[in-house]
């Protein structure tokens, strides 16, 4: 029932957003839903285990980690939204608030189910509810971005449905009763037909990989994150992509139970390094700070796939990295959103001297950059170090060297643009725009960054406990 409650609160909030008349008070619904959802999520993650409801609502240990990051990120974004939308009163925020809540509800359903069909339905619902969010600015460019996002992700996700069917078909062709529920697929796994199972995995990897933004299916990402409001980019790059990764974890678990672990691992390592390579190439010389962050998201999806591919301690690292990447992307996109407001541009050379123009947001953007590129003392350093450690321990020396080299190139490429944006003097035009940092648009970012810092210094015991559960579930030996 608690799973239903977490989804229901989003639906109620969405309905309230639709009927509220005032654009000023409507955004206040977001923090209210965010707080209730977070309380429920804490209960789901650390409360006493609940029996599956209706045979399809159930959460597995990796799901708990993703639920934590999604709920935390939404809570931070919801407070930010109240401040942000005050600067955007020229257009109605009804659709924006409604779709943000539907997106949260759909993501909760993706996480809290163990049926491949329901996961697919919820995942497609996330695509549909985020399309209007991307189109919030109503410009030609945002329209183009929305169309590309909708079409590429819908086709990608159609591949994922086919993949889910193929996995069920691999039972049918062996004369077993076909099923799409993950626990029963794991049970059947040793008897499934290998060829169809592998075909299913490839389709699912392409399908959910598109949603995650793994190269070469990442083409929608820079356009979408570049044109969507910062708060939307934050929720999509931190939450939605994590949900897509969770689905790959679950499917990999089925394949591993069927003895196909090593085969899937090679594919995942290849896709991971390829995504990092694409990101590195396109980040060099990138002048648009939001597109830069989009390529950073492609990079970190690559890192997650790499960690899942290597397994062992690297897999635990990847699960921790889901949290680190999600929260740090929140810091970066929200502060980039503030910079975009203040400069009414998101590219250098228009954006320069952000630390002088916006002391808080500029500094947060810089610190977010330091964190996301894996510098101590922030969280991503710890998780990336675990992935590196794992790849050496398990003999993937080539992957380890390529990983380090690409991280270094990305640090240089990203650093050049970020430093140009934050240092120097702001232009005259930028000094006379109405936007100023305030408690609503700054405090949520500070709080999120503090969490990233805490994970970098030590991993709190409750979190370590959930990570360990997930590791055991995925067959990592302690």
């Amino acid at each position, binding site marked *: 029932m608690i799973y239903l409650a977490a989804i229901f609160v989003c639906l109620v909030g969405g309905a309230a957003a639709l009927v509220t008349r005032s654009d000023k008070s409507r955004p206040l619904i977001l923090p209210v839903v965010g707080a209730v959802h977070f309380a429920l999520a804490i209960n789901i993650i650390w409360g006493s285990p609940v029996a599956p409801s209706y045979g399809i609502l159930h959460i597995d240990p990796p799901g708990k980690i993703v639920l934590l990051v999604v709920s935390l990120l939404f809570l931070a974004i919801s407070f930010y939204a109240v401040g942000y939308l005050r600067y955007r009163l020229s257009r109605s925020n009804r659709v924006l608030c409604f779709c943000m809540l539907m997106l949260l509800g759909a993501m909760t359903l993706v996480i809290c189910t163990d049926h491949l069909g329901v996961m697919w339905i919820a995942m497609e619902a996330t695509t549909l509810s985020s*399309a209007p969010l991307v189109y919030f600015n109503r410009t030609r460019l945002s329209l183009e971005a929305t169309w590309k996002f909708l*079409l590429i992700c819908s086709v990608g996700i159609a591949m994922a449905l086919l993949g889910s069917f193929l996995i069920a078909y691999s039972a049918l*062709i062996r004369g077993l009763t076909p099923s799409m529920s993950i626990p029963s697929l794991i049970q059947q796994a040793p008897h499934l037909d290998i060829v169809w199972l592998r075909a299913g995995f490839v389709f699912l990897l392409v399908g959910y990989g598109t949603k995650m933004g793994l190269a070469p299916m990442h083409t929608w990402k820079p356009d979408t994150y570049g044109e969507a409001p910062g708060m939307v980019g934050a929720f999509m790059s931190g939450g939605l992509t994590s949900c897509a990764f969770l689905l790959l974890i679950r499917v990999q678990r089925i394949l591993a139970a069927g003895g196909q672990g090593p085969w899937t691992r090679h594919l995942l390592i290849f896709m991971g390094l390829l995504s990092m390579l694409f990101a590195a190439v396109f980040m060099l010389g990138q002048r648009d700070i939001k597109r830069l962050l989009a390529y950073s998201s492609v990079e970190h999806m690559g890192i997650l796939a790499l960690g899942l591919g290597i397994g062992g301690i690297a897999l635990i690292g990847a699960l921790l990295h889901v949290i680190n990447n999600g929260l740090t992307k929140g810091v970066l996109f929200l502060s980039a959103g503030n910079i975009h407001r203040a400069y009414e541009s998101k590219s250098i050379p228009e954006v320069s001297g952000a630390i002088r123009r916006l002391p808080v947001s500029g500094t947060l953007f810089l610190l977010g950059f330091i964190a996301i590129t894996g510098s101590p003392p922030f969280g991503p350093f710890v998780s990336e170090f675990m992935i590196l450690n794992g790849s050496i321990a398990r003999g993937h020396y080539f992957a380890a060297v390529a990983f380090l080299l690409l991280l270094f190139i990305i640090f240089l490429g990203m650093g050049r643009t970020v430093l140009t944006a934050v240092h120097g003097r702001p232009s005259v035009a930028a000094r006379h725009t109405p936007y100023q940092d305030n408690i609503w648009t700054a405090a949520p970012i500070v709080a999120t960054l503090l969490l990233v810092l805490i994970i970098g210094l030590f991993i709190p015991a409750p979190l370590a406990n959930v990570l360990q559960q997930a590791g055991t579930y995925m067959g990592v030996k302690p």
Partner: protein
Amino acid sequence: MISMYILNAVLVLVILLNMYALGAGRMSSLVRTAAMQGVLLALLPEIALGSRGLMPFAVTAITLGVKGMLIPWLLLRALRNTNVKKEVEPLIGFMPSILLGALVTGTALTLSGILSAPRHPLGLMVMPTAISTLFTGFLLLTARVKAVTQAIGFLILENGIYVFGLLLLAAVPALVELGILLDVFVGIFVISIILHHINRTFDSMDTRSLAALKE
């Protein structure tokens, strides 16, 4: 046995509709082709498996309504409200498209013995039909210029997955089937809204004009 004949006849009809869609020159006839295909497919479970109780029957009725009436109505309305030419503009010509489609369908039919589950009650035709329909959808998505044609391509692609799903009816609960249908419907609904905006902003539905965002 009779139901088996009807099933195969319907599947052959679905394949013929694929070929027709690949050669269709007017967008409204393309919409109608996709709708007719959707209707035939919605009827298939009732034809092939007979009466299975109230819930599956309700699913069939809803699918018929959505695929046969609601979605074509949305798309035809989107077409009517635009002031562009109603012809399909192909990147790959009509004749080469049909030939490609026929080639893939023929190959799938030849290999159906290997691809199909042994002794499945629905026989050998389902798998090749699914592959043919999936490929048709893909071709329409990639080899046609206008945004509406791409939306129809997506619809036919989904039809192909539906054909494949027929083999797995036991694994797909009615609730999930309805969920998938709801997603497809909302998807087409959102697409038709975006189409309206594209047409108003760019004064055309040619997706080649959507090319400002690049590195």
